[in-house]
């Protein structure tokens, strides 16, 4: 029983972090219809910001307030100067924005490698490995906090999208870009803001992940893949779906590791991905209608 509960706790806590990584991607995908394949790499940049601030004695949770605006700005610049101009160019490949994000991801990785070298860096804090026990079940404090922050961001995003003007414009652009233009929405500006928001959210995930993991130029790739799975699981553009997607992936990986074998961690994620595409195209969003 302890093994089952501990696996459940580990899966849910990891899922919270995954959700935060996924929300940014699902937002970008919903509005622009493209997969941002530089998503994990943007998180990696945020982790290095956290690392540099950590060297200066700043707590990773405080560096949230630096990394998020910084990545928001970086995201806006990428959309404004690298992705939007591609819309105006005729090419044989319809999805050249996606290819562009692959290139951006590589450039980010190599720039970081150039500055920081291929060295493993750690952001170890007093609470990196702090735990409390409930019965025999261990709860990681760092992951617990990041879970709460992930939920808070999701709720905030949800109300932002429902209640504010910019949020409504983002949803309008996601639903029908041409109609949104006719209604007077500046869709160019909205895509820039959306990419910025998506980058800012994944920056938050980076700040929360840094103390419990390690920092390295190449760690972006696997997280891009996970964010993509979460996006498909949750449904495009659905923030609530991203929470479900993240927790589902976290739980699947944990239970797979305990009851099957950790060797198959990646296979389990991909199997769910294929099953959802086959039997529930549109993801959890289809079930909830949100």
């Amino acid at each position, binding site marked *: 029983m302890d093994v089952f509960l501990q696996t459940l706790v580990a899966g849910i806590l990891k899922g919270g972090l995954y959700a935060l990584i996924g929300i940014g991607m699902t937002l970008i995908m919903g509005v622009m219809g493209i997969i941002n394949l530089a998503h994990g790499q943007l998180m990696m940049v945020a982790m290095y910001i956290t690392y540099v601030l950590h060297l200066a004695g700043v707590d990773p949770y405080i560096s949230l307030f630096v990394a998020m605006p910084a990545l928001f700005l970086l995201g806006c610049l990428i959309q404004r100067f690298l992705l939007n101009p591609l819309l105006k160019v005729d090419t044989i490949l319809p999805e050249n924005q996606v290819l562009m994000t692959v290139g951006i991801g590589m450039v980010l990785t190599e720039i970081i490698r150039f500055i920081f070298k291929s060295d493993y860096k750690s952001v170890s804090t007093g609470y990196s490995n702090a735990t409390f026990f409930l019965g025999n079940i261990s709860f990681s404090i760092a992951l617990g906090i990041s879970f709460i922050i992930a939920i808070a961001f999701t709720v905030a995003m949800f109300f932002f999208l429902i209640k504010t003007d910019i949020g409504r414009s983002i949803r309008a652009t996601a639903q029908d870009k041409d109609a949104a233009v006719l209604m007077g929405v500046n869709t160019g500006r909205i895509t820039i803001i959306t990419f910025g928001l998506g980058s800012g959210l994944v920056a938050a995930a980076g700040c929360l992940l840094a103390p419990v993991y390690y920092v390295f130029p190449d760690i972006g790739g696997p997280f891009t893949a996970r964010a993509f799975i979460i996006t498909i699981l949750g449904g495009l553009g659905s923030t609530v779906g991203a929470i479900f997607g993240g927790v589902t992936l976290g739980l699947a990986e944990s239970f797979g590791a305990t009851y099957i074998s*950790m*060797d198959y961690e990646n296979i389990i994620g991909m199997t769910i991905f294929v099953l959802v595409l086959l039997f529930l195209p549109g993801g959890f969003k289809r079930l909830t209608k949100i």
Partner: protein
Amino acid sequence: MSTGRKLVFAVFAVVLGLCIGSVVVAAETLKVGIVLPLTGEQAKFGEIEKRSFEMAAEEINGKGGVNGKKLELLFEDDTGKPDVGRSAVEKLISREKVPVLTGGYSSSVTAAATAVAQQFKVPFMVTTGSADKITESGYDYVFRINPPASEYPAAVVTFLEQVVKPKTAVILYENSLFGQSSSKSFEEDCQKLKIDVVAKEGYHKGAVDFKPLLTKVKSLNPDLVYMVSYVMDASLLMRQAKELDLNPKLFIGGGAGFTLPEFHKNAGDAAEYVFSAALWVETAPYPGAREYFDKYAKKYKEDTEYHGAEAYASLYVVADALKRAKTITPKDVRDALATTDMKTAFGPVKFVSYDKKTQQNKIPTFLVQWQKGSLETVWPKGVADKKFIFPVPKWNERK
């Protein structure tokens, strides 16, 4: 027309000049091709080895080189991928015409790279790549200074036999060629010692959360947890074992990541008392071992470890072979390598054949333990500089 012809002549002359130039340069230096992961996830190990190769080259060239010729090291980056390693070796052989190759870090890359060297009949003196099969393929152009992965835990085995006497063990390993090779042979060692292996679990490197795996280990309550991991997986395993209050009698790392300074930096106090197999320690009774360690620390302001020592020794072995070779052709250098018998900072080097292995160096191994943030040699007794701390205190009994 005439200007065109002049241009052709000019180009021809330049090309000819370059050819002669390169021949002259080639006559002055001896090229040594070295394949290492200089970028990618294993770049840390590549860096230590590259620096050590360069240190050895400086020393050899400073003393007048080999038979009056200077060594020229040609590094190629294998990025940790077997296909890149293959083409790196092809490039060194066909374009640079190197008479001898060395380096080779990860087992998967080395297995691919040595196959190419064998095919072109150019000797490859493997520095690290440790999967057993590399010297079990009957390649007569492949030598290895590093012991095979199955022999890493030799000192661990005697320590378990004489001191710990565990009854049950769990083996955790990264599902790479090195991890599989090491874990399989340790399982066989356990059978010989009558230790019951209650679980043997692989994982994919770079995982975020090992807690489900470690929870399973905790429920099995083994005496010994043996891990074959690279540096950051190693530190996450130990940190999360601490979080889960997993208390076997001892944790042992099977070399690779557990001896690097980064392991302790990332794992912090969770690294304390962890044992690891090591192929070399600076206190080993080899001529030049301590000098190499001190020189490296002075030059790069960082500690080196066994990977560096074997790279450093590799170049001395190659230089020795080049010195004794009748002519500088791959064939003669290979014959010279086969009769190597010398003492290096990494230990005595002699390529012998035994069991299924050919041209394999045999050296004793050591057991190290992290004590108060520094790596101490604790076994075998003859070379130990500190006494081992065993039994290890439980997590909640530590300060």
